[in-house]
Each structure stands twice: as structure tokens, then as C-alpha cells.
């Protein structure tokens, strides 16, 4: 006997999520069946998120208001932008309170294995912001292979512009994620940033 069609549809849709295979999807689906209230809560918050959250048209971070609160703030140094991979990295740096400029969220990293090239990242938008005139671009991608490759790629594009390019220090262990770095580590990484040259 096969599982009911509606059930398989749920497990198949769960599998589109990153890191979720068939087995985990089935486990999740059974869990949701056994705890229907929790399932409904997920449905509600998902609906809310999908209808209310958008991407900031300037920095690409997730936000309810566009532009986001960072981009529309008057207390921030608008001549400095910090380039990160994903929205959670912005929140990590904000939580640590170690940076007073603006952000630019790439929305991913270069990764041929996942079919991700420069056209899938918000590179053009970044170049446009740099052209408008900036003092410093801080590249704060993670020190993973993909993070380093993307940092290098960005540097190669930006080096023709008249802007100081820096890279956050390796306070963060190799291969680690900004998202998990504690506040002191982030502070050191930000303060110890160095000019990023070939």
C-alpha cells in the first residue's frame, strides 16, 4: 500500500527545503500529523511571513518596511557598506553592535556545485551602490572556500573603482559561519579587518 496522495505531496514539498531528504521529510510530516495545532501554527506564521516580509530594495535584507530600518536610518555611516552572504549575517553583526555602516546582502555565495554563478548573487546592485560613491567596502563573507572565492571575485570587480576594500579578519575559525560566531569574535574580526589586496 502506498501512502495517501495528499501525504506524499506534503513530504515532496518539504523536500524542496535545503538539507531535507526523504527520510527527514517523512519524519516531519508524521510529526505534523501527530501535533495538528503546531502544524496550524506553522501554516499561519508561514502565511504571514510570505505576505509581509519582503527584501529591502537597497541592501537585500529581509524586512517588513522597504527600505529596511538600517537603510533608512540617519545615524549610520552611509559611506561604508558591509557585504554579507545572507540576512542572518546582518542580524549577527547587528546583535554584536560592532558596525555602524550599511549592509549589502548577496543572497548566496558562488558555488558551481550548486549551479550558483555571479548572476545569481546581487553583484550588479552592489556595483551600482559603489558607483554612487563610497569610502569603504568591507567584505564579510565566511572563511569557507565559497566565502573566500566570492570575496576574491568581489575584490576583482571592485578594484577598478576608487574605494577602499577590506576583508574581515580571520578571528573566525576557518570554515566557520558568521551566524554562529560569538560577539567578541565578531568584534575582533571587524576591528581587525585589513585592506584586501592581491
Amino acid at each position, binding site marked *: 500500500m502506498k501512502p495517501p496522495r495528499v501525504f506524499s505531496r506534503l513530504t515532496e514539498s518539504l523536500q524542496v527545503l535545503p538539507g531535507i531528504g526523504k527520510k527527514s521529510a517523512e519524519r516531519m510530516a508524521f510529526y505534523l500529523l501527530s501535533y495538528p495545532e503546531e502544524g496550524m501554527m506553522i501554516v499561519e506564521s508561514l502565511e504571514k511571513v510570505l505576505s509581509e516580509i519582503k527584501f529591502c530594495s537597497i541592501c537585500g535584507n529581509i524586512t517588513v518596511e522597504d527600505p529596511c530600518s538600517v537603510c533608512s536610518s540617519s545615524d549610520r555611516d552611509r559611506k561604508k557598506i558591509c557585504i554579507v552572504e545572507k540576512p542572518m549575517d546582518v542580524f549577527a553583526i547587528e546583535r554584536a553592535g560592532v558596525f555602524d555602516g550599511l549592509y549589502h546582502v548577496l543572497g548566496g555565495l*558562488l558555488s*558551481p556545485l550548486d549551479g550558483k554563478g555571479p548572476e545569481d548573487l546581487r553583484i550588479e546592485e552592489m556595483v551600482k551602490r559603489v558607483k554612487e560613491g563610497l569610502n569603504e567596502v568591507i567584505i564579510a563573507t565566511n572563511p569557507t572556500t*565559497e566565502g*573566500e*572565492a566570492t570575496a576574491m*571575485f568581489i575584490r576583482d570587480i571592485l578594484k577598478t573603482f576608487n574605494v577602499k576594500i577590506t576583508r574581515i579578519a580571520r578571528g573566525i575559525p*576557518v*570554515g566557520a559561519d558568521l551566524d554562529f560566531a560569538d560577539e567578541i569574535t565578531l568584534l575582533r574580526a571587524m576591528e581587525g579587518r585589513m585592506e584586501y589586496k592581491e
Partner: protein
Amino acid sequence: MYLKSLYAKNFRNFKTLKLDLEPGINLILGDNGVGKTNLVEIVYFLSTFGSFRTPNDDDLVRFGESYFIISGMYGDVKVEVRYADKKKVLVNKVKQERLSNAFSTIPVIALTSSDLEIVDGAPVRRRRFMNIGISMYKRPYIDILSLYSRALKQRNSLLKHATTGKEISGIEIWEKQLAMNASPIVTARKDYINRLLHYAVPVFYSLTGQDIEIAYKEGADYENLMEQFKQMRKKEIERGYTLYGPHRDDIIFKTKGHSAKVSASFGIKRLITIALRIAQARMLTQIRGEEPILILDEMIGELDKEKLELLSDLLMDYEQVLIATTREDLQERGDYNIYRIEERDGAPFIRKGAETIHSI
């Protein structure tokens, strides 16, 4: 320091195992297939978080079970590994986010029969020999190695999907990543081989009266790696993967001026392997300032009397040695701690000296 006790649950043929170990030479005796290798495999796994017999951790889970737990007390440091789909390592009960940080907390050098492949087998076997050897005293090496392998996978995926004659856009970024990480890897390996040679020569000489040469063979033109990539683009696209770099390096062992892999006798190949492991142990003692635990899984069974004598002398330098063997006569050689594994009703039992039987 030495390993004071071992615990295992659902590891290979052990359902539960609790065993106290002693400093000095521990002789693990028993018939074929009772679990001698399984026992030393636990110790090796606690050091390197991998087996010397299989790359697949699932093979280590007791048939019919879904997880294993092993732990050991090394001095007052407790190392524990839990495996169920994924590996979790705890040092003194603290979960290790990065295995590389805990690698070789218990320093172990193992000489096992699969080590013959270091001389005889494919180059990947010799690279693994170096990689593990270096990681025992230079943990960042593991991280650099994984950055390198990741960049390699990325570049290979571009090569695989490329068409000959066409530009592969963005490939240089990955080549730079490869070159950037290749250089510390190759430097560390060459340094390792040089140092190892220094220790291996006298050991091999004392075992055989012969000289040994160990040379590093570079898998690329490291001075001009980026240029090499550019020139060999066509060939690499045809093959669909990267042909140059540390993942193609090799070691060449020579005795009497000729490649041992090609021309040495079986007995000499075995003695090279033994010398390499002893050299590794000596080098590690020097660098870390503590003696590793030595494991000998067979490999000594067929040594003649004189060689066995020499080897026993070499083993005296170590605080703790575990020897797994079917050779009963070894116990007459000295004041060894004897562990005897026997099978009862299909389950292994260990008897320590004249002591009571440890139920397992």
C-alpha cells in the same frame, strides 16, 4: 600518559565492553575472528575518529543495531565518540563542534596489516598516511585540507560541465583558491617527509642493515600552478577533473636505489612499513613531548626471531603498547599484560591475566 580504560557499546562484535588497560605492553591474544582487531580499532577510532579498516562508519555498528558509543580515559582526559548516522565527539563531556580541534587528543600510532598498502598500494594511500601523520601535530592542516578539497570539487564541477574550446567563466577564482591552499599543504608535507626520513633511516637500518630513501613527488608545478592550469585546460576539460595539485602528490620509497613499490621483496616491504610507523611514533614523541600509544595489529606474526627481538627493543621506549596477535608464544617474551579474547555462545569474552572474566 596512557589509556586507563575503554568502554564500548554496540561497536563491531562487542555488545558492551568495559576494560581496564595497563601501562607497558598489553598483549591481546585469541583465535582468528574473536575480536582482537575490533578492540584495537576502538582505540584508533578514539584518536582519529575513523577506522583503519573501513571509510564507512556504519560498518562499525554492531549488526542489527543503529548506533555505537565508545570512550576512553587517557590520563584524566575522557574522549567519547557517539555514532548514529552522524559522529559526535566529546572531550571531557564537551561536544566538539569541529572534529579537527579534537583530532589525536589521544595520540595513537597504529601498525596494521593494511599498512602494507602504504608501500604497495595506490598514491591515495600514501597521501592519507601523510595527512593523518601531519594532522597529529598540526591541526590547522586538516582545515586547510578541507578548504582545498572543497575548492577542488567546485572546480571539477565546472570542468565536468564545460565544453572543449570554450571559456569556462569564473574558473580562475577556484584556481586561485586551489593555489592558495595548495602551498601550505605541500610545504607541510615536504617538511613532514624530511623529518620522517630522519627518524626512519636509523630504524630501517637497525631492522635490515639497509638504507632507505623517501622522496616527495610533486603532483604539479607549484611555482606556476595557475599557468599550468591555463596550459592544460583542454586536457582537463576532456578528463572532466583537475589533474594537477596536492591531490596528485605521492611519496616514493627506495631501497638499494630502486623503487620499493616496484622491486622490493614482500618481507622488505613489511619492514619498511614497520620502520615508517616507528619513525612516526618517534617523531610525534619529539614534537608533542608525549609518547603516542602504539598499536600493533599482527604484522609481527611472521617476523623471524632476530627481527622480533629488535622490534621488542624498539617498543620498550613507549609507555603503552597494544599488540593484537594469534601468536601465543609471544607471552613468554617478557612481563606482558595478557588479555585473552574468547568466544562464548557467539559473544566475545575477555580474560585479563589470571583475573576474573569480564562479561561483555
